[in-house]
Structures are given as C-alpha cells and as structure tokens.
C-alpha cells in the first residue's frame, strides 16, 4: 500500500523528507493552526500541512511575513488550541519582537516555533544559530538528531509546551529539513478543541507593571523545564568503561558522531552524551559525563552554544577536564561525518580509513576543468527584461542629468541572480525589504540616481513601510516592484497579490499600484517588461520624477506560464535565429541578456527550443533583426 503523510497507519514505515516528517509530527499531535512565511529550508512544512489541511480540520495560512505567522499561531495558542509557526532562521529575526514578549506570557494550547537554520547558507543571505535567540527569551529548544526524531519531537513539543506552559522551539538544520529517511509513523490525534479566550489582563496586557509581574513567572516556568530535561528521552548518556574521551553531541551532530565512531572502529570505546535539548542543557547528565573522562569534545552545528554552557557547568561544579570543540571542528561550512571523523581521529591518534588529504587533492585537481554552473535566471524570466530596461534607462538618465552611475539596491528573490554579469543590476542586497529600506538611506547622502528593487512577495512582506518612509521623509528614489505573480524563489507560494490562499481558496487580490498610490506616491506606473521600448521610456520618466516614484513591472513567472500552457495543451510561440541575417561575430543577444536558451554551437548562435519560452527579448535586442518567431 502506498503511504502518505495523512495515512492512519501507526507502526508502519514511510520514506519521508524531514519537512514532511515535521508536518506529520504536528498532524499526529492534533495541531489546529499552522502559519508560516516561505523560506528555504522550512517551506515544505506548511506546504505539506496545507495539502491535507481540509482532511484534518487544520487552519493553515501563508502569512504576509514571519512576525504575522508567529502572532497568528501564538494567539491561537492563547485560545487553548495547538498551534505552530514555521520559518527559516532569518524569519525568526522578523518574528523576534512578538517572540520575546510571548515568552513572558507563555503558552496555553501547545505552541511550537520551528526555526530552520541553514548552515553554509545553501539558500540564505547569512548563517545564524537561533539557539541564542531561544536563550534570550527563556524558550526551551528541542534539536533532532534524525528525521525520525524530528517527527517525534515535533509531536511531543505540543504536549511539552502545554505541560510547562511555555512556547517550545524545534531547531533544525538544512540536513534535517532536506534529509530523508524511513520514518516510523505514530498515531494521529483527532482531538479538536474549540478556541476559548480567557480574559486575564494582568498577564496578557504587557504594560511595564504587568511585565514586571510576568517575568518571575517566566523564570519559574523555565526553572521547571530545567529540572525536567535530564529525564527527557532525547537526552541520553552512554558511558564507555574506562573511556578517556567523552563526546557531547547535539542534534544531528549525534548522527555524525555515531557514524564517525563506527568508521574509526571506536564504537563503545568513547563515552557519548546525546543532547536533544541544547537549551536548557541536561545538567546532571553533563556533570556525569564530565566527571568520568579526561577530555571532552563538543560537537554541534554552527556556533559553540553547547560548548560554552558546558564549560560554565564545569566551572561551577569545579570539574577539571580538557575541552575541545570549535578548535577542532571548523566554524565555517556545513558539519559532516568527515569533519567529525577528523576531529575524533586527532584526539584519539587513530588513522581515518580514508585518506582525506588525497580526496582533497583530487577535488582541487579537477576544479579547474569544471565549467562554472551558477544558478541563473531562467530563459524567458520577466526579471531579466525588467532589469535590462531599468539599467538602460538608468544610464541614460544619469548622463542627461550629468550625474554619476546610478546605485541599484536590490532584495532577496530570484531577481537577485542578475547581480551577476551580464546584467549586473544590484549593488547592495541585505535582507527582505532592505531593497527599499537602504535606498532611503542612500538618497540622503548620494548625488546619483538611486533605484531600488523588490519582488512582489517581498513588497508585501517588508516593502510597504519602506515605501511610506520614502514618501514621508522625501527620499527621491525610484522603487521598482518586480511582480511575477508568485513567490518564485521558494517554489511559487501564493501571496496577497495572487488572489489565492495556502489551501487554494480564492482570496482578495491586492494591487501593488493601488497600495503605492495609497502610500502617497505621486508617480506610479505599471509596465509590461516584454515591451522593452515602452518600459525604458517609463523607467526614464520615473527616474527623472521629482520625488519618490514607483514602477510595477508585471509579467507572470516564466515557469508558471510554461506550466499553465502545458496544462491547457497550448504551445508557446518560440523564437529562432535566421542564419542568413545573423552575424556570427556579433553575439549581442547572449552577451547582453545572458539567457540560457541562447547557446553557441560551432561558432554559430542558436536558440535551444527546449529552453526558449518565447519572451521575444532577444528579438528586440538584435539589431540585425535575425531573431524571428518559429512558424507554426
């Protein structure tokens, strides 16, 4: 029988993605409200929940941003239902404000925040260890060592949150979220509670006077958790007889450690403390390990969070052991079995079974032979057209005004990829919303045109306050919204501009140009980026406008267009190169646009019909008129 996340099949095993397993854990716990904003590596959690929401009576939503996702879930918890919010690590920064005060109030219905950290920034603008955020808010953290444990912890976290009346955090890393494994399914709770808001202003209205009263209650709740974690099943100590070395391994690091020990033949010769609750740590277990060995290695992903706490425990209890951690396990890069193996080998004078130096030599030797394959805008991507036109206009306007090159601020999304040649349309990218935000700052200190870009999903997420700021504080900037009718980078999630909700229901469709006008922007135009001449003209007008201006560039994502055409059985009109008119030495089309569908074959320029989506941009830039529609 084919199993799915909604299968009522306790005791059976299913092959699952980490994020599916986390969603399954929430389903097993009877979650009733789940809110999120997309962000790799967390996105599939809410996608999975939304796909079965109606069957289980779960309310799911793609919130406008992470602060909202957290607030929606937290409010539901206050009404006694089980609720969760999931987001990537930087999303927790956006939710930080409500999170830090929610911890003063505590939880009623089980409340779980999933923080998906992304070591090595596989798809992020930074790396961040959110266990520190948890510590700041007296919020307990569960950190799974495997996909199975991610499911189990998630299910358990709701119960624990209710027992200790505090929101819990499930901290994952990319290799858990995007890991896969066989998962033993548990029972699904069909218990559904009716939301009830019990008024209790002395705890829920956080004026200074009430906050001062809430703080000791929060400390008390945390203290209870601290006393309980030693007996949580997620923490366990395996003492090896007469072992000199003890390893403290947190979360997924525990799996790397087990594998490394087997690989080195040290299985059963080293004491191992598995940590599933890095905050607070199981102090008694830590002391037991420290007291039994001479040398300790702390293995954990990203920062030395556990390491520092363990050192503090040792100092407080006067235990004298030699500590290792980030001195042997690099602070840079993703953790791996290989890195843990090297560290253990060094401490135990063992020779690893693989000559890692030799493997590294092979890698370095082959590197120069490899073609560069960076991610790039798809063929037919409307962002390429927008940014190409925007840059031509920017150059012209700067020249006309006798000013230097414009500065282009950007934001996070697919469109960030054109910071690379040949378009090079971004000079500064910080975080979501900062495309408009940083432009506000530049405008007051630079005497060149300042052009700011954000995507449509990003606009709703964090762009609107920055737009209002530009109007209010008279920042003369051109704000470009790249509206491709999707949150494309993370996999086409709907947003307030798409007219659909997470569960696929029809919703109000907000128009970005209406919002811009309501914000008080006096120059607002909508362009079709595939009409290049017109787009350049409007960009020029916007950049010359005396005051903040807005250009909304609207064209659906090429991947969506292709998908829809396929569904409807329609064929797109594609383009080809007319051999006689093409000057093989010219190559302007791909040098200007960097479209992956335009390739060079034996010195000739060719359009790859398997990639072309018929955007016509190359036909518009070709001054030999050599690019024409494919006759049907």
């Amino acid at each position, binding site marked *: 029988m084919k199993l799915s996340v909604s299968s009522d099949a306790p005791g059976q095993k*299913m*092959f699952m993605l980490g994020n599916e397993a986390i969603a399954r854990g929430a389903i097993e716990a009877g979650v009733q409200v789940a809110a999120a904003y997309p962000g790799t590596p967390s996105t599939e959690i809410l996608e999975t929940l939304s796909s079965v929401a109606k069957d289980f009576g779960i309310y799911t939503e793609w919130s406008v941003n992470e602060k909202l996702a957290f607030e929606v879930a937290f409010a539901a918890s206050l009404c006694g239902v089980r609720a969760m919010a999931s987001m990537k690590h930087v999303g927790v920064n956006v939710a930080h404000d409500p999170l830090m005060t929610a911890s003063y109030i505590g939880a009623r219905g089980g409340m779980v925040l999933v923080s998906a950290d992304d070591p090595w920034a*596989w*798809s992020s603008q930074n790396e961040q260890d959110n266990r520190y955020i948890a510590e700041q808010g007296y919020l307990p953290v569960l950190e*799974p060592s*495997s996909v*199975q*444990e991610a499911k189990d912890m998630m299910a358990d976290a709701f119960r624990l949150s209710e027992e200790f009346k505090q929101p819990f955090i499930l901290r994952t890393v990319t*290799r858990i979220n*995007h*890991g*896969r*494994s*066989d*998962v*033993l399914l548990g029972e699904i709770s069909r218990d559904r509670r009716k939301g009830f808001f019990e008024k209790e202003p002395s705890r829920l209205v956080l004026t200074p006077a009430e906050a001062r009263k809430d703080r000791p209650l929060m400390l008390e709740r945390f203290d209870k958790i601290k006393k309980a974690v030693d007996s949580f099943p997620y923490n*366990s100590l*395996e003492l090896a007889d007469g072992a000199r070395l003890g390893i403290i391994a947190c979360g*997924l690091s*525990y*799996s*790397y450690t*087990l*594998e490394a020990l087997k*690989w080195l033949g040290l*299985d*059963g010769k080293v004491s*191992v403390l*598995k940590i599933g609750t890095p905050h607070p740590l199981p102090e008694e277990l830590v002391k037991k390990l420290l007291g039994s060995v001479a040398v300790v290695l702390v293995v954990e992903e990203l920062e030395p969070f556990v390491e520092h706490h363990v050192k503090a425990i040792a100092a407080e209890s006067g235990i004298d052991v030699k500590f290792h951690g980030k001195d042997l396990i690099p602070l840079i890069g993703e953790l*791996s*079995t*290989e890195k843990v193996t090297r560290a253990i080998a060094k401490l135990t004078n063992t020779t690893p079974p*693989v*000559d*890692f130096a030799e*493997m*590294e030599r*092979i*890698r370095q030797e*082959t590197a120069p*032979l*490899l*073609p*560069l*394959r*960076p*991610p*790039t805008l*798809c063929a037919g991507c409307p962002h390429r057209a927008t940014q190409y036109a925007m840059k031509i206009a920017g150059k012209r306007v700067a020249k006309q005004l006798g000013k230097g090159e414009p500065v282009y601020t950007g934001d996070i999304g*697919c469109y960030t*990829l054109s910071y690379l040649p040949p378009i090079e349309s971004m000079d500064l990218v910080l975080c979501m919303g900062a495309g408009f935000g940083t432009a506000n700052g530049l405008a007051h200190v630079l005497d060149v045109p300042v052009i700011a870009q954000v995507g449509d999903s990003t606009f709703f997420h964090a762009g609107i306050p920055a737009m209002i700021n530009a109007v209010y504080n008279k920042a003369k900037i051109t704000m470009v919204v790249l509206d491709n009718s999707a949150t494309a*980078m993370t996999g086409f999630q709907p947003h307030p501009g798409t007219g659909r909700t997470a569960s696929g229901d029809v919703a109000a469709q907000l128009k970005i140009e209406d919002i811009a006008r309501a914000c008080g922007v006096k120059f607002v135009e909508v362009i079709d980026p595939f009409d290049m001449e017109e787009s350049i003209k409007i960009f020029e007008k916007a950049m010359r406008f005396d005051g903040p201006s807005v250009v909304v560039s609207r064209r659906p994502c090429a991947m969506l267009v292709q998908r829809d055409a396929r569904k409807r059985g329609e064929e797109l009109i594609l383009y080809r190169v007319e051999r006689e008119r093409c000057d093989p030495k010219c190559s302007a089309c*791909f*040098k200007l646009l*960097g*479209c*992956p569908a*335009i*390739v*060079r074959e034996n010195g000739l320029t060719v359009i790859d019909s398997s990639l072309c989506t018929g955007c016509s941009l190359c036909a518009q830039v070709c001054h030999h008129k050599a690019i024409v529609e494919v006759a049907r």
Partner: protein
Amino acid sequence: MPSQGDSRGGKIVKELNILIVGVGGQGVILMSEVLGNAAVRDGIRVRGSEVLGMAVRGGSVSSTIRMGDDVYGPLIPAGKADILVAMEPSEALRNIGFMTKSGLVILNARAVVPFTVSLGMSNYPGLEKIVEKLKKSASRVVVLDAIKLAEEAGSVQSANIVMVGALFGTGLLPIKVSTIRETIRERFPAKAAQVNDVAFHLGFEAYSAL
C-alpha cells in the same frame, strides 16, 4: 550504542552509498525519492539528503541514498560513494572526490553546457577527458545515452528513470526489481507510468548488455 530515535530490526544489508548528480530540472531528486521509497518497502534502513542551493535556476544538484545499518548521516563522506549516477558528465567530475576506489560510475553521455561557456567565462571539458579523469578515481565507468533511450520509451522526461533502470542492471542493489518497478509505476499518472516503466526496462537492459 544508544539509538537515534529510530527502530531497527529491518532487513540487514551491507552499507551501500549511492550518489546521484545532475543539474536542476533533470529529475535527480525524483530518482532518490523512488529509490528510497522502494528501499523502505523492502524493509531496508535508508538515509539520504539533497544538496540543492538555488538549483532550480540551472545550478548543480546532488542527492544521496544510503542503505545499511551503520549509516546515520544524511550525506556520503568523501571516499565512501560506491555508485555515482550522473545525469550530466561534468557533474560526475564535480563529485569525483566522493568516490571509493572500487566504485562504479554510471554516466549519461549528454552534456548540459552552462551559459557561462557561451559567455566565454568557462570551458566545458570533452566527454573523453571526463571519462579519463573519472577512471582514475573509480574502478569502472559506464557511459549510456539515457536521452536516446528515454525518447525510445516515449519521452525525454524519463531519462532519469532510464538511469534508475541501469542502476538496477548492475545487480548491486539490495532492493527487489519488482519493488522498484511497482514504486515507479505508482509514482506517475497512468500514461507517464507506462513510459517510465519502459524507460526503466530499457536502462536495465542497456546496462546488462554491456
């Protein structure tokens, strides 16, 4: 050994590490999905992960499938990949540092040349050069034209399943052929299921005929 939260007691198999590589859009993730699903059906303990980055936009993709009782980490450590299945030749070369000396490489011959080559920012090595390099790090390198076989099966989209067929043609997998075929058939809607079933068969035969 303490447990990792998972139950054991499945079928005990020798550790086998399979690394699948390619570029965004070639169906690499789907290959590991069907392999993992089939393994679990046969009661085999399995771990894996996908390394994507922003791969959808044409970047490199890799995915791991690891079977065996002593496997814990999701990724394959350097020097431990037993089989490298490459949908694209240069991507095989990019991952050669993971191979064990006694390993096997199964390679789809068709290159996907990145735009950086057209722009003159980098070069694409020829297939012969790639195979020569691969041979230094693996004991056997097998080259197939999966695209051609997929076209024969009825759709170029099924090239990834041709490669899964070839992988089973090696006879090295602990998963039953009937299980993987059933898993593949269930994975797709009726018409695509049939195309992919043929694709699997053609890949299997192509490897066996070598």
